[in-house]
Protein backbone atom coordinates (compact mmCIF):
# COMPACT_ATOMS: atom_id res chain seq x y z
CA UNK A 1 0.00 0.00 0.00
CA UNK A 2 2.70 2.43 1.04
CA UNK A 3 4.50 1.63 -2.21
CA UNK A 4 1.48 2.83 -4.17
CA UNK A 5 1.48 6.21 -2.50
CA UNK A 6 2.87 7.85 -5.63
CA UNK A 7 -0.50 7.39 -7.32
CA UNK A 8 -1.96 9.44 -4.48
CA UNK A 9 0.66 12.09 -5.16
CA UNK A 10 -0.29 12.04 -8.85
CA UNK A 11 -3.94 12.62 -7.99
CA UNK A 12 -3.13 15.38 -5.51
CA UNK A 13 -0.77 17.16 -7.88
CA UNK A 14 -3.23 17.09 -10.74
CA UNK A 15 -5.96 18.45 -8.46
CA UNK A 16 -3.68 21.30 -7.41
CA UNK A 17 -2.88 21.99 -11.05
CA UNK A 18 -6.53 21.97 -12.10
CA UNK A 19 -7.38 24.27 -9.22
CA UNK A 20 -4.80 26.78 -10.42
CA UNK A 21 -6.00 26.40 -14.00
CA UNK A 22 -9.68 26.93 -13.26
CA UNK A 23 -9.79 29.35 -10.35
CA UNK A 24 -6.78 31.59 -10.92
CA UNK A 25 -6.73 34.33 -13.48
CA UNK A 26 -3.10 35.39 -13.27
CA UNK A 27 -1.35 34.13 -16.41
CA UNK A 28 1.82 33.14 -14.59
CA UNK A 29 -0.22 31.07 -12.12
CA UNK A 30 -2.11 29.40 -14.96
CA UNK A 31 1.21 28.47 -16.52
CA UNK A 32 2.36 27.07 -13.20
CA UNK A 33 -0.85 25.06 -12.90
CA UNK A 34 -0.31 23.53 -16.31
CA UNK A 35 3.30 22.74 -15.42
CA UNK A 36 2.11 21.05 -12.20
CA UNK A 37 -0.36 18.86 -14.12
CA UNK A 38 2.43 17.98 -16.54
CA UNK A 39 4.65 16.97 -13.61
CA UNK A 40 1.83 14.86 -12.20
CA UNK A 41 1.54 12.98 -15.49
CA UNK A 42 5.33 12.63 -15.64
CA UNK A 43 5.38 11.25 -12.10
CA UNK A 44 2.68 8.78 -13.09
CA UNK A 45 4.65 7.61 -16.12
CA UNK A 46 7.90 7.25 -14.23
CA UNK A 47 6.25 5.38 -11.37
CA UNK A 48 4.81 2.89 -13.86
CA UNK A 49 8.28 1.62 -14.61
CA UNK A 50 9.64 1.81 -11.09
CA UNK A 51 10.84 -1.34 -9.40
CA UNK A 52 11.89 -1.48 -5.79
CA UNK A 53 15.71 -1.32 -5.49
CA UNK A 54 16.09 -1.32 -9.28
CA UNK A 55 19.07 0.16 -11.09
CA UNK A 56 19.23 2.38 -14.16
CA UNK A 57 18.50 0.43 -17.35
CA UNK A 58 21.85 0.61 -19.14
CA UNK A 59 22.88 -2.08 -21.60
CA UNK A 60 26.43 -2.45 -20.30
CA UNK A 61 25.21 -3.06 -16.75
CA UNK A 62 23.04 -5.97 -17.79
CA UNK A 63 24.15 -9.42 -16.66
CA UNK A 64 24.77 -12.04 -19.36
CA UNK A 65 22.10 -14.38 -18.04
CA UNK A 66 19.26 -12.36 -16.50
CA UNK A 67 17.56 -15.40 -14.99
CA UNK A 68 20.57 -16.14 -12.77
CA UNK A 69 20.93 -12.63 -11.45
CA UNK A 70 19.35 -10.82 -8.52
CA UNK A 71 19.83 -7.50 -10.30
CA UNK A 72 16.66 -5.59 -11.12
CA UNK A 73 16.38 -2.79 -13.65
CA UNK A 74 13.63 -0.22 -13.87
CA UNK A 75 11.68 -0.15 -17.15
CA UNK A 76 13.41 2.01 -19.74
CA UNK A 77 10.39 2.84 -21.94
CA UNK A 78 8.50 4.98 -19.37
CA UNK A 79 11.71 6.92 -18.80
CA UNK A 80 11.97 7.68 -22.49
CA UNK A 81 8.31 8.68 -22.53
CA UNK A 82 8.79 10.92 -19.51
CA UNK A 83 11.81 12.59 -21.06
CA UNK A 84 9.85 13.33 -24.23
CA UNK A 85 6.93 14.66 -22.27
CA UNK A 86 9.26 16.85 -20.18
CA UNK A 87 10.67 18.33 -23.38
CA UNK A 88 7.18 19.00 -24.68
CA UNK A 89 5.96 20.55 -21.44
CA UNK A 90 9.05 22.74 -21.46
CA UNK A 91 8.10 23.97 -24.92
CA UNK A 92 4.51 24.60 -23.86
CA UNK A 93 5.64 26.49 -20.73
CA UNK A 94 8.06 28.62 -22.73
CA UNK A 95 5.39 29.42 -25.30
CA UNK A 96 2.84 30.35 -22.63
CA UNK A 97 5.33 32.57 -20.84
CA UNK A 98 6.27 34.34 -24.04
CA UNK A 99 2.59 34.92 -24.86
CA UNK A 100 2.16 36.31 -21.33
CA UNK A 101 5.13 38.63 -21.84
CA UNK A 102 3.70 39.90 -25.13
CA UNK A 103 0.24 40.37 -23.63
CA UNK A 104 1.66 42.14 -20.61
CA UNK A 105 3.51 44.55 -22.83
CA UNK A 106 0.38 45.32 -24.85
CA UNK A 107 -2.08 45.63 -21.98
CA UNK A 108 0.02 46.21 -18.83
CA UNK A 109 -1.90 43.53 -17.00
CA UNK A 110 -1.29 39.90 -16.12
CA UNK A 111 -4.88 39.11 -15.17
CA UNK A 112 -6.48 37.25 -18.06
CA UNK A 113 -10.04 38.24 -17.11
CA UNK A 114 -9.12 41.92 -16.93
CA UNK A 115 -7.45 41.68 -20.32
CA UNK A 116 -10.47 39.99 -21.87
CA UNK A 117 -12.80 42.63 -20.45
CA UNK A 118 -10.57 45.47 -21.60
CA UNK A 119 -10.38 43.99 -25.10
CA UNK A 120 -14.10 43.30 -25.42
CA UNK A 121 -14.88 46.91 -24.51
CA UNK A 122 -12.77 48.27 -27.32
Amino acid sequence: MILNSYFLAVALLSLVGFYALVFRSNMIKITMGLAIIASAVNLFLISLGYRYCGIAPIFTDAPIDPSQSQLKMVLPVPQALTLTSIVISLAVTALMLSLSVLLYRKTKSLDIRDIKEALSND
Partner: protein
Amino acid sequence: MHAENEKNSKIIEFAALGLMVPIITFGIYVIAHGHLTPGGGFQGGAIMATAFALLFVSLGKKAIESIKGEVLVALECIALIGFIGIAFLGMGNTFFFNFLANSGVLFGEKVPFGPNSGIFSSAGVIPLMNFFVGLEVCCGLTLIFFLIFKGAD
Protein backbone atom coordinates in the same frame (compact mmCIF):
# COMPACT_ATOMS: atom_id res chain seq x y z
CA MET B 1 14.26 42.23 -15.76
CA HIS B 2 17.38 44.30 -15.61
CA ALA B 3 17.15 47.94 -14.78
CA GLU B 4 19.34 50.00 -17.04
CA ASN B 5 21.54 51.78 -14.56
CA GLU B 6 21.85 48.85 -12.23
CA LYS B 7 25.37 47.44 -12.18
CA ASN B 8 26.47 44.14 -10.75
CA SER B 9 29.64 43.88 -8.74
CA LYS B 10 32.83 42.67 -10.36
CA ILE B 11 32.80 39.58 -8.14
CA ILE B 12 29.50 38.35 -9.57
CA GLU B 13 30.59 39.00 -13.14
CA PHE B 14 33.90 37.26 -12.65
CA ALA B 15 32.41 34.27 -10.83
CA ALA B 16 29.78 33.83 -13.54
CA LEU B 17 32.37 33.89 -16.31
CA GLY B 18 34.52 31.46 -14.36
CA LEU B 19 31.60 29.12 -13.71
CA MET B 20 30.69 29.01 -17.41
CA VAL B 21 33.73 26.88 -18.19
CA PRO B 22 32.95 23.95 -15.88
CA ILE B 23 29.22 24.10 -16.68
CA ILE B 24 29.77 23.91 -20.43
CA THR B 25 32.37 21.20 -19.99
CA PHE B 26 29.94 19.19 -17.91
CA GLY B 27 27.25 19.71 -20.54
CA ILE B 28 29.55 18.45 -23.26
CA TYR B 29 30.45 15.46 -21.09
CA VAL B 30 26.77 14.57 -20.61
CA ILE B 31 26.10 14.88 -24.35
CA ALA B 32 29.17 12.87 -25.33
CA HIS B 33 28.38 10.01 -22.97
CA GLY B 34 24.69 9.99 -23.82
CA HIS B 35 24.87 6.49 -25.23
CA LEU B 36 26.64 5.05 -22.17
CA THR B 37 25.06 6.80 -19.19
CA PRO B 38 21.65 8.15 -18.29
CA GLY B 39 21.99 11.42 -20.12
CA GLY B 40 22.09 12.58 -23.68
CA GLY B 41 21.40 15.45 -25.98
CA PHE B 42 18.51 17.12 -24.21
CA GLN B 43 20.00 16.91 -20.73
CA GLY B 44 23.43 18.06 -21.81
CA GLY B 45 22.00 20.84 -23.93
CA ALA B 46 19.88 22.05 -21.04
CA ILE B 47 22.96 22.08 -18.79
CA MET B 48 24.88 24.10 -21.36
CA ALA B 49 22.00 26.53 -21.70
CA THR B 50 22.06 27.20 -17.94
CA ALA B 51 25.57 28.58 -18.41
CA PHE B 52 24.18 31.16 -20.83
CA ALA B 53 21.28 31.89 -18.49
CA LEU B 54 23.84 32.58 -15.77
CA LEU B 55 25.66 34.89 -18.13
CA PHE B 56 22.49 36.84 -18.89
CA VAL B 57 21.56 37.13 -15.21
CA SER B 58 24.99 38.26 -14.08
CA LEU B 59 26.15 40.47 -16.94
CA GLY B 60 22.76 41.88 -17.91
CA LYS B 61 22.76 44.21 -20.89
CA LYS B 62 26.39 43.57 -21.78
CA ALA B 63 25.73 39.88 -22.43
CA ILE B 64 22.51 40.53 -24.33
CA GLU B 65 24.24 42.92 -26.70
CA SER B 66 27.11 40.57 -27.40
CA ILE B 67 24.85 37.76 -28.63
CA LYS B 68 22.95 37.80 -31.91
CA GLY B 69 19.59 36.05 -32.06
CA GLU B 70 19.95 35.25 -35.75
CA VAL B 71 23.11 33.25 -35.14
CA LEU B 72 21.28 31.15 -32.56
CA VAL B 73 18.37 30.56 -34.96
CA ALA B 74 20.76 29.55 -37.74
CA LEU B 75 22.67 27.17 -35.46
CA GLU B 76 19.41 25.66 -34.28
CA CYS B 77 18.25 25.08 -37.86
CA ILE B 78 21.59 23.54 -38.80
CA ALA B 79 21.44 21.19 -35.82
CA LEU B 80 17.90 20.06 -36.68
CA ILE B 81 18.82 19.60 -40.33
CA GLY B 82 21.80 17.53 -39.19
CA PHE B 83 19.52 15.36 -37.07
CA ILE B 84 17.03 14.74 -39.85
CA GLY B 85 19.86 14.39 -42.34
CA ILE B 86 21.33 11.51 -40.36
CA ALA B 87 17.89 9.93 -40.29
CA PHE B 88 17.73 10.34 -44.08
CA LEU B 89 21.17 8.73 -44.49
CA GLY B 90 19.71 5.51 -43.15
CA MET B 91 17.16 5.57 -45.97
CA GLY B 92 18.99 2.75 -47.76
CA ASN B 93 17.31 0.52 -45.23
CA THR B 94 14.61 2.49 -43.51
CA PHE B 95 14.28 6.00 -42.16
CA PHE B 96 16.30 6.42 -38.91
CA PHE B 97 18.24 3.21 -39.61
CA ASN B 98 21.40 2.97 -37.52
CA PHE B 99 23.79 2.38 -40.43
CA LEU B 100 26.97 3.03 -38.42
CA ALA B 101 26.34 0.54 -35.62
CA ASN B 102 28.75 -2.41 -35.63
CA SER B 103 30.28 -1.20 -38.87
CA GLY B 104 33.73 -0.63 -37.35
CA VAL B 105 34.06 2.86 -38.80
CA LEU B 106 32.86 5.83 -36.75
CA PHE B 107 31.34 4.91 -33.38
CA GLY B 108 31.06 1.47 -34.88
CA GLU B 109 32.51 -0.83 -32.28
CA LYS B 110 30.59 -3.81 -30.92
CA VAL B 111 29.69 -3.74 -27.24
CA PRO B 112 30.28 -7.02 -25.43
CA PHE B 113 27.44 -8.59 -23.44
CA GLY B 114 27.62 -8.72 -19.70
CA PRO B 115 28.63 -6.06 -17.18
CA ASN B 116 31.40 -3.88 -18.60
CA SER B 117 32.34 -0.25 -18.47
CA GLY B 118 31.13 0.49 -22.00
CA ILE B 119 33.05 1.56 -25.09
CA PHE B 120 32.91 5.19 -26.08
CA SER B 121 33.19 4.45 -29.79
CA SER B 122 30.00 2.43 -30.03
CA ALA B 123 26.27 2.87 -30.69
CA GLY B 124 26.56 4.08 -34.30
CA VAL B 125 24.56 7.18 -35.16
CA ILE B 126 23.20 7.69 -31.63
CA PRO B 127 26.17 9.81 -30.38
CA LEU B 128 25.97 11.92 -33.55
CA MET B 129 22.25 12.48 -33.05
CA ASN B 130 22.90 13.28 -29.38
CA PHE B 131 25.40 15.89 -30.47
CA PHE B 132 22.90 17.55 -32.80
CA VAL B 133 20.10 17.39 -30.24
CA GLY B 134 22.45 18.90 -27.65
CA LEU B 135 23.35 21.76 -29.96
CA GLU B 136 19.70 22.32 -30.81
CA VAL B 137 18.52 22.33 -27.19
CA CYS B 138 21.37 24.58 -26.08
CA CYS B 139 20.66 27.11 -28.83
CA GLY B 140 16.89 26.87 -28.41
CA LEU B 141 16.90 27.42 -24.66
CA THR B 142 19.48 30.18 -24.94
CA LEU B 143 17.28 31.82 -27.57
CA ILE B 144 14.28 31.64 -25.22
CA PHE B 145 16.27 33.20 -22.36
CA PHE B 146 17.73 35.74 -24.74
CA LEU B 147 14.36 36.84 -26.08
CA ILE B 148 12.72 36.99 -22.66
CA PHE B 149 15.61 39.02 -21.25
CA LYS B 150 15.84 41.29 -24.23
CA GLY B 151 12.09 41.72 -24.40
CA ALA B 152 12.02 41.85 -28.17
CA ASP B 153 8.77 41.54 -30.09
